[in-house]
């Protein structure tokens, strides 16, 4: 067999077309039609924090809402943004043009900001659960978008504030050199300073080409700082922590993982992750309601427990469906601004986050939980990884709206 130029080009073209085609799961026809599109990372570094488990959570929300019984025909679509803003923008346009009522998830702040703009242009609803950048409800806020689950400001307040109060006064940061890393570093550094701490150094390392962090870790160690602040995410955080262990840094410094999901802890293993301090707004084993939710959703995602990002997709979808039902006007649902305004008026209540609400600027206001990762011996059941240290109420965790907000929705 020889491979001709034509077959090669042909297969390459087919591959490209397949990659950009949204993968759909249609349901039986009939009833009022609602389309929800999960745009997430299905193939790259944030797949385990979003991806298929986010889809499972959205589907669980549709089931828990009782869509079929209430006479709705809900279709859940999915698209892989590949962590590229241009791919994400094209997908979002395509989905909205196909009549999608809600785009949800979108980890990666750069892609989220891009899709945020598309939602505004098309006047359709957008709930971001996976991205961290607090700029989504600040500089980039709009009437069509809601930022669910967490943001950089809240991570800085919760993890940063707690570590300084516990005596970690001097900090050395290792920062991913792009928008997200800088935002996380700047906001945490501000918290450290406001609590009387000092920042003795910072390294901006190239993202995403760095796998070896030993050089930065040695610099952190020789700085004499008490706390190592990791302003990065995903595999970078895992690599940083794994290597900090190898160099025995954990004996001299405390490590603050400024953005760590439970899936990262699972990937590292408790041998490495033990004693790490981190913040999430959802943990499956937090209370009876979170355990009940997790028990329901696990059959859809047996190998990957939901983290806060994915639980946020559940919570956001459920609230969206409740609002649609309460509005009882399918024409108004197609008006993104009107729909999101109605979502903001109604308080939220679900098993994953309990009672909460959405602020005027689109910020979902939920409690931030500070956790410590358990030692291997303390973990009794699968994915039993966290001990709760403290909780910060929403009004303390998120950036106050009065504080120099750049959000145009707020009339001052």
């Amino acid at each position, binding site marked *: 067999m020889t491979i001709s130029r034509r077959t090669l080009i042909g297969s390459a073209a087919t591959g490209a077309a397949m990659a950009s085609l949204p993968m759909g799961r249609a349901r039986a026809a009939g009833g009022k039609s609602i389309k929800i599109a999960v745009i997430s990372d299905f193939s790259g*570094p944030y797949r385990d924090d979003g991806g298929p488990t986010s889809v499972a959570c959205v589907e669980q929300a549709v089931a828990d809402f009782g869509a079929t019984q209430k006479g709705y025909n809900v279709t859940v679509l999915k698209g892989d943004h590949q962590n590229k803003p241009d791919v994400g923008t094209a997908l979002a346009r395509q989905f909205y043009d196909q009549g999608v009522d809600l785009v949800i998830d979108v980890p990666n702040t750069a892609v989220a900001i891009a899709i945020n703009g598309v939602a505004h242009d098309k006047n359709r609803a957008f709930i971001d659960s996976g991205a961290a950048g607090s700029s989504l409800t600040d500089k980039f806020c709009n009437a069509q978008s809601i930022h669910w689950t967490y943001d950089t400001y809240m991570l800085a307040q919760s993890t940063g504030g707690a570590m300084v109060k516990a005596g970690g006064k001097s900090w050395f940061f290792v920062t991913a*050199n792009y928008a997200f890393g800088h935002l996380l570093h700047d906001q945490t550094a501000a918290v450290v300073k406001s609590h009387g701490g000092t920042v003795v150094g910072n390294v901006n390392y190239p993202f995403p080409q760095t796998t070896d962090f030993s050089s*930065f870790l040695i610099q952190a160690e020789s700085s004499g700082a008490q706390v190592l602040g990791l302003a990065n995410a995903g595999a970078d955080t895992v690599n940083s922590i794994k290597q900090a262990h190898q160099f*025995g840094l954990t004996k001299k410094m405390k490590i603050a993982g400024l953005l760590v999901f439970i899936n990262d802890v699972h990937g590292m293993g408790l041998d490495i992750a033990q004693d790490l301090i981190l913040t999430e707004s959802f943990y499956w084993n937090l209370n009876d309601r979170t355990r009940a939710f997790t028990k329901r959703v696990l059959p859809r995602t047996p190998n990957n427990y939901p983290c806060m990002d994915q639980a946020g997709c559940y919570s956001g979808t459920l609230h969206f469906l409740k609002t649609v039902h309460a509005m009882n006007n399918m024409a108004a649902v197609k008006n993104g601004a009107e729909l999101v305004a109605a979502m903001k008026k109604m308080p939220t209540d679900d098993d994953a986050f309990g009672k909460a609400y959405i602020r005027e600027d689109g910020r979902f206001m939920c409690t931030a939980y500070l956790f410590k990762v358990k030692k291997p011996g303390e973990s009794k059941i699968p994915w039993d990884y966290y001990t709760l240290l403290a909780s910060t109420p929403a009004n303390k965790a998120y950036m106050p709206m009065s504080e120099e907000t750049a959000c145009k929705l707020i009339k001052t």
Partner: protein
Amino acid sequence: MMMIFGKPAPLLFGQLLLGIINGSFYAMLSLGLAIIFGLLRVINFAHGALFMVGAFVTWGLHHYLGIGFWPALLIAPVIVAALGLGIERGLIRFTYKLDILYGLLLTFGLALVLEGLFTNGFGSSGVAYNAPDLLSGVVDLGFMFLPVYRGFVIVAAIVICTAVWFTIEKTRLGALLRAATENPSLVQAFGVNVPRLIALTFAGGVGLAGLAGVLAAPLYSVNPNMGSALIDTVFAVVVIGGMGSIGGAILTGFGLGIIQGFTEVFYPPASSVVVFAVMAIVLLTRPAGLFGKAA
């Protein structure tokens, strides 16, 4: 404390050592690439993915079969080499008569397929693998604490690189390999099975990637993208060293590791770019690479 260019001397000694450790991986990976390119004229873009497979096989041996690090050091490269043999016989050999770009496209596609399969099977956040007990812990070198395992990696890399260089440049087998690429029909006329020789060379080259994967498993996050993060730098190493030059790949691998290590102290954001800056300078002044023969 003694200062060099405004940085404490112990910090710089530490960086030198860390640079050599990273250089060990560059050297081992670029070595396999250089062998495959030098003898087969195939630009193997799947090399990073096969490095990743090596790390996953190491983890899998322990996770599913309870086989530890030391046996894995032998078993995993053999499994990866066997996979390489299948890839060469099943796919790559069809590209030998075509333009060199077809082999590149094919292996690039293979890398994407392998990464996709592992992402689907094991997720993106990776799996846990720790250094064997014998090699855990740190030694105090006075100017820094060196993890024992990293010291082991340096020694292992030097031994492996020297052995491979010796085999190719100084033994009868190596001479046959080099002859087979210069003039396959003549070597065949002497009764040597050239296609088998080439297939085994490819298997050997990717086996080296698998071996590097085993050594990397306790150091880095074992995840499906771990290879693609390294492969760009490794290609730059091969180009700087001179495409196909075995010794060049080894020396450049260690050299660039050290240059990168120092960049990480003086201006960290440039540490990924510095390799390519060196590559540009080398290509401008010596287009065939530092150790390459002029084309």
